[in-house]
């Protein structure tokens, strides 16, 4: 119990060294590795997201917490692979064509990893063709599209159309996010879901594809 609470605190305050130390301790005392994620890291990142929305936390704090979580995950992931519960599904993510904003996308990507998904991050300014190729090659369950510019939102639509044209759309869910978006827009372009922030993105991904196979 104390370990979970301490890990939560370490992630919340972005203390990477402490997060690693506590995780190591937890694993030595044979706490269920999945519990470290589900009962400490995810709730911590939820709280980080809430503080960001409330303007108590700012981008440095977001990135520090994500870094602490990733460092702790490095220790946990091999153990999850041993138990066979290695991945909750394969996600291909990127910022769409013409758009270079990647801070939010990087956070969402880190959160997906934290939640146990396998993530293929294509970076920013990603063409519809590149999304299609990666989705096919990796046998992705979900494609995550990020856009911060109003003028690049149509690239989301073209990416979804390209997935359709490639015959992948019935196998791949599409999640969209980024500051200028809305649920209405997501519906209009036939995405499966819209998430306003990183924790909502994890929840949406879990609902859409939770429990699927890892990337190929």
């Amino acid at each position, binding site marked *: 119990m104390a370990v979970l609470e301490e890990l939560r605190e370490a992630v919340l305050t972005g203390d990477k060294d402490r997060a690693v130390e506590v995780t190591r301790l937890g694993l030595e005392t044979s706490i269920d590795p999945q519990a470290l994620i589900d009962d400490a890291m995810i709730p911590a990142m939820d709280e980080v997201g809430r503080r960001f929305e409330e*303007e108590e936390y700012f981008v440095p704090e977001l990135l520090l917490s994500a870094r602490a979580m990733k460092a702790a995950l490095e220790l946990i992931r091999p153990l999850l692979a041993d138990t066979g519960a290695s991945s909750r599904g394969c996600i291909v993510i990127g910022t769409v064509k013409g758009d270079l904003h990647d*801070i939010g996308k990087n956070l969402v990507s880190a959160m997906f990893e934290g939640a146990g998904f396998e993530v293929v991050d294509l970076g920013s300014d990603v063409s519809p063709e590149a999304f299609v190729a990666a989705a096919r090659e990796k046998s992705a369950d979900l494609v995550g599209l990020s856009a911060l510019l109003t*003028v690049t939102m149509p690239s989301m639509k073209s990416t979804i159309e390209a997935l359709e044209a490639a015959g992948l759309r019935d196998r791949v869910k599409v999640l969209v996010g980024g500051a200028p978006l809305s649920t209405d827009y997501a519906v209009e372009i036939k995405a499966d879901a819209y998430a306003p922030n990183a924790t909502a993105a994890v929840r949406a991904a879990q609902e859409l594809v939770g429990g699927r196979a890892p990337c190929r």
Partner: protein
Amino acid sequence: MKGRTRVLSLLDGRPLDRLPLMPITMMFAADQIGVPYGRYATDHRVLVRGQIETARRFDFDHVSAISDPCREAADLGAAIEYYPDQPPAVVESKALLGEARQLARLECPDPTSAPRMADRIAALSLLRQEVGGDLLIEGWVEGPCALAANLRGINALMLDVVDEPGFVRDLCAFCVELALLFARAQVEAGADLIGIGDAAASLVGPARYEELVFPEEQRLIEGIHALGARTRLHICGRTRRLLRQLARLGTDILDLDWMVPIEEARAACGPEQVLLGNIDPVALLRGGTPAGVREGLGDCHAAAGGRYIVGAGCEVVRDTPLPNLLAMVEYARAHGGRAGPGSHP
């Protein structure tokens, strides 16, 4: 009253005929003259034509040499990607300061001979030749945090502010050295006012802003004043939590993004501060109606009281419907400017 006189009258507390109008245009201005943005950003003659044409069409009080955040970074040797119809952008994966210690080896180039900075200086000379005296001429520099982000990579810089504050302080100080050299050359070429864009500053939060960014922004503003020019500070994004500090900077114009309630800015800055803005450039100016634009500006104006300049929260985006922009123009034309103090709710 000519645009230049109008803006300077407001800044100096003299009477003026109507509200000054100073929206930021870049891609919108290039589209006005039907030139792809890549050319607008890299050829000062195109930029000057776009600015003058746009200012004339929409009765703006100023013309500006703003184009993209990469001029200083490019001349320092950063990897830049140029696009046919978009602003040039820094390639973050090949950041110039991939290692923090590389800062020690960085030297300020001479802005008058470094190609991308010299192109902006040439734009200002040409603007002075073409519209000097009629319209206020605005130069532009990157603020300390924005340039630091361009050199280090914004994702890395956001961690540095916690891990390596000393490095960030040194880096911001270097950025201000260059900004002041660049500002001097722009003022000599004809700029009446220097705009400072410091987008990344909105991301660090008030404590780190106070410690690392504020002192350098303040030094930059004081340095530009010493050159005999005015300043306009624009920080994209959520700066509501920075208002108490922004109030102490001494910038002539505080240009606010749309997420900041102007009444809070007025309360924090007091009645003397000139405020500019700040309707939502995307949802309202691009996506709304002329009536909505008038109403939005009416709210901003009422909240700001006197010492107010009409504009959007950020760049007037591409594809903004002309009737909406004209509604903004009409708003400025229809309302008397007040040189006197703003109301202080």
